[in-house]
């Protein structure tokens, strides 16, 4: 065990009092003394930056890998949009390429970008710093988790280069078509996809183990669960959901791999192909759908809950006001998490299930709207009479609220069986889920990057590029997805490679071209953002310590940016929640979490 962090507060205190007559304040509480954390101290370049066990570096590794694969997902979406806006114009786009782009775009964005970025990236970076821990509880397992993720990403990338290309079965990978000839990538592509998912799940479980146990057991003194920043609550609850939901994906992936490779019939029904009866029979494709969506719906909240948490913190800091209804926010996160496990079949209204079943799932789906609406009201009430600073993180956070409300309201429509049936499989659905779990969380990702970039690098991102990035992304997202709602209403089906000259397509042609051009512009702006990230790393304006004047512990480390071990000789002691902004009676504008009550006499404690 390293002796670098031995707690000698008591000695230090007695030394102080003998030399300067310093008396400890009346509410003095010694720092946490039990040091059960053994940290591995990196000695070489390799162990410091590559095979690193420091959660902060692992977080950055996760974020960079996720961003890299996410850029591929972005370019794939361009391919789709070019085909939809200008069919028969580009020779490199055939039906197979189109379906492969759709599939890989969906899978990459949902799992390899958003899940990895929120939990692997922000989870690793923020959890230990925010709860006052030196590192995750199992740093070695944490490192292995990242390398499993990287292998999963590489296997996914490898599927682009195998004969037949990557799978084109749609991101839901429904059998039997996913493994039947005629679907692009039904040879090796689908196998690599399933293997990659299984590896991702295993890698994630290792990481998730760390996030959950660190939050539960490794907090610093005074950091009760109800004093944690909402970011940690969001990431924690999402991780619990992921640990319980990803097994369903794992199980489905294994059984489908066996159906494909060994010829078992878990999911494969009796099939006649080219006049011949195949060896399959009796399997249930609906079973796969149940397994997939038992994972797939919690997955929506695995992405959304960290976004909820992070945006709450950002809104509070940049509006200089405490978060409205902290306890209610925590309840809402927990309730949404619990409910998310009993709504999955609303993705399957048209799969031919019993109408009463649909009735049940419609009801649970609509109930989720209650805690979600509470959260939205609380964000708005936090802004109400706040001292709003329109910084770039705040702009993105406001963009999130608007977009999330928009996508959430279309969700109320789709949650009802009767309204869903005609809208099912149209562009209305595409518009809905992109708004609610594409644009909304990615707005939070951007807000979080602009917010914590100074902490990670010690420099600010370029403000002008940032403003351009925000306005083009925000307005552009609406230019892309608002027209899609209309396309859905007039009945344009999703997943179609080309509409040829269907009668109702006349009004859609111009819209599709407009959407495509908007998508190209928005996509290009994301590369501008990447340019900003990489150049600001060494050229950006130097940031002073705690530039946003935030209260949570990550901004109050002895070294700025925080170094290995996060905190100096002693862990901080926490006396308050992280939202003490503009406290009545206090002589300070904001009171960090580790400031003792005796240092801020007169500050009122606010009900939460």
């Amino acid at each position, binding site marked *: 065990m390293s002796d670098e962090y031995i707690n000698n507060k008591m000695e230090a205190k007695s030394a102080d009092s003998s030399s300067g007559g310093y008396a400890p304040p009346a509410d003095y509480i010694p720092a946490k003394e039990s040091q059960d954390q053994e940290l591995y101290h990196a000695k070489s370049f390799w162990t410091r930056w590559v095979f690193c066990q420091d959660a902060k570096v692992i977080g950055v590794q996760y974020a960079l890998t996720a961003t890299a694969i996410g850029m591929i997902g972005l370019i794939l979406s361009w391919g789709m949009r070019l085909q939809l806006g200008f069919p028969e114009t580009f020779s490199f786009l055939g039906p197979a390429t189109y379906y492969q782009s759709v599939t890989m775009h969906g899978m990459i964005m949902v799992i390899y970008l958003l899940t990895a970025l929120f939990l692997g990236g922000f989870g690793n970076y923020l959890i230990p710093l925010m709860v006052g821990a030196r590192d995750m509880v199992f740093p070695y397992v944490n490192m292995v988790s990242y390398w499993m993720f990287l292998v999963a990403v590489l296997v996914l990338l490898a599927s682009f280069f195998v004969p037949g290309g990557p799978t084109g079965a749609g991101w839901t990978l429904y059998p039997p078509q996913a493994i039947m000839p005629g679907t692009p990538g039904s040879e090796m592509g689908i196998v690599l996809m399933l293997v990659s998912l299984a590896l991702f799940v295993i890698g994630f*479980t290792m990481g998730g183990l760390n996030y959950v146990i660190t939050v*539960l057991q490794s907090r610093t003194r005074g950091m009760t669960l*109800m004093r944690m920043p909402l970011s940690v609550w969001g990431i924690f609850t999402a991780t619990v959901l992921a640990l319980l939901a990803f097994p369903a994906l794992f*199980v489905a992936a294994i059984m489908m791999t066996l159906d494909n490779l060994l010829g078992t019939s878990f999911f494969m029904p009796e099939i006649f192909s080219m006049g011949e009866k195949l060896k399959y029979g009796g399997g249930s494709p609906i079973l796969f759908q149940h397994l997939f969506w038992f994972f797939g719906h919690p997955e929506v909240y695995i992405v959304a809950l960290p976004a909820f948490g992070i945006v709450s913190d950002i809104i509070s800091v940049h509006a200089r006001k405490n978060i409205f209804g902290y306890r209610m926010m925590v309840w809402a996160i927990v309730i949404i998490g619990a409910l998310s496990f009993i709504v999955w079949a609303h993705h399957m209204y048209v799969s031919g299930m019993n109408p009463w079943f649909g009735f049940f799932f419609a009801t649970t789906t609509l109930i989720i709207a209650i805690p979600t609406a509470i959260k939205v009201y609380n964000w708005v009430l936090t802004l109400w009479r706040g001292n709003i600073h329109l910084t770039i993180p705040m702009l993105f956070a406001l963009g999130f609220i608007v977009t999330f409300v928009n996508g959430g309201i279309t969700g109320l429509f789709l949650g009802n069986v009767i309204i869903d049936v005609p809208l099912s499989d149209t562009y209305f659905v595409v518009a809905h889920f992109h708004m609610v779990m594409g644009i909304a969380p990615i707005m939070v990702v951007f807000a979080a990057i602009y917010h914590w970039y100074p902490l990670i690098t010690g420099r600010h991102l370029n403000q002008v590029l940032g403003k351009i990035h925000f306005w083009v992304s925000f307005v552009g997202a609406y230019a892309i997805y608002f027209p899609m709602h209309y396309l859905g209403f007039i009945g344009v089906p999703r997943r179609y490679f080309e509409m040829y000259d269907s009668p109702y397509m006349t009004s859609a042609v111009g819209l599709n071209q407009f959407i495509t051009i908007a998508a190209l512009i928005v996509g290009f702006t994301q590369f501008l953002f990447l340019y900003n990230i990489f150049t600001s790393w060494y050229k950006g304006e130097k940031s002073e310590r705690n530039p946003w004047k935030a209260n949570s512990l990550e901004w109050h480390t002895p070294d700025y940016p925080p170094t290995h071990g996060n905190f100096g000789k002693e862990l901080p002691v926490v006396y308050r929640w992280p939202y003490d902004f503009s406290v009545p009676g206090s002589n300070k504008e904001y009171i960090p979490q580790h400031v003792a*009550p005796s240092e801020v006499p007169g500050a009122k404690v606010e009900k939460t």
Partner: protein
Amino acid sequence: MSEKELNIFKLLSQKPWEPSQAAIDNEHDGKTLASSKVKLGVRTIMVVSTVIFSLFVVSYSDRMLVHDWVALSEPGLLWINTLILIFTSFVFHKTKILSDKNEFEKVKNYLLLVGFLTFVFITGQLLVWQYYVNIGQYASTNPANAFFYLLTALHGLHLLGGSFFWGRATTKLFNKNFKVLKIKQAIELCAIYWHFLLIVWLVLFGLMVIT
């Protein structure tokens, strides 16, 4: 398990702004559960595994209702394997008791016995596979077979994963200067994991026998 804050409703209805609660909160040492982090790690793994196996059981129950399901007849060897696994768990329990009493010389032998029995169990399972292959019952022959191969394989892989940690504990113990507390904890956790896998096997085997 003795949790400090077992009740999530109680936790969520705390009033941190009350001075009395704030005083308690300031002294809070940051641990939610009175359990070591390694133990919680093993528990979490067991929860995730339970979810995985439960989903398989659900899939099994759903799939067996289709008319093409032909139940597999279990050979006697499978019953012997089950007895071996029960015996292994029993021995591991004994090992844990001995390690609590600091009788590490005996623990060494018992740990080796556990390893041997686990090896015998896995070999036995492979022999059952060989038996089925010889009588022409392949994975693709019938969904019941497919589930049998899949579930035994997954259970075996879990056991092999546990054996890795069993191996680490055993090599540490044979090292002259081992840390007593760490060894005790490792043995306890391995024993819990073995009992867990025994229960998983009994559920899976029971399901396969009654259907």
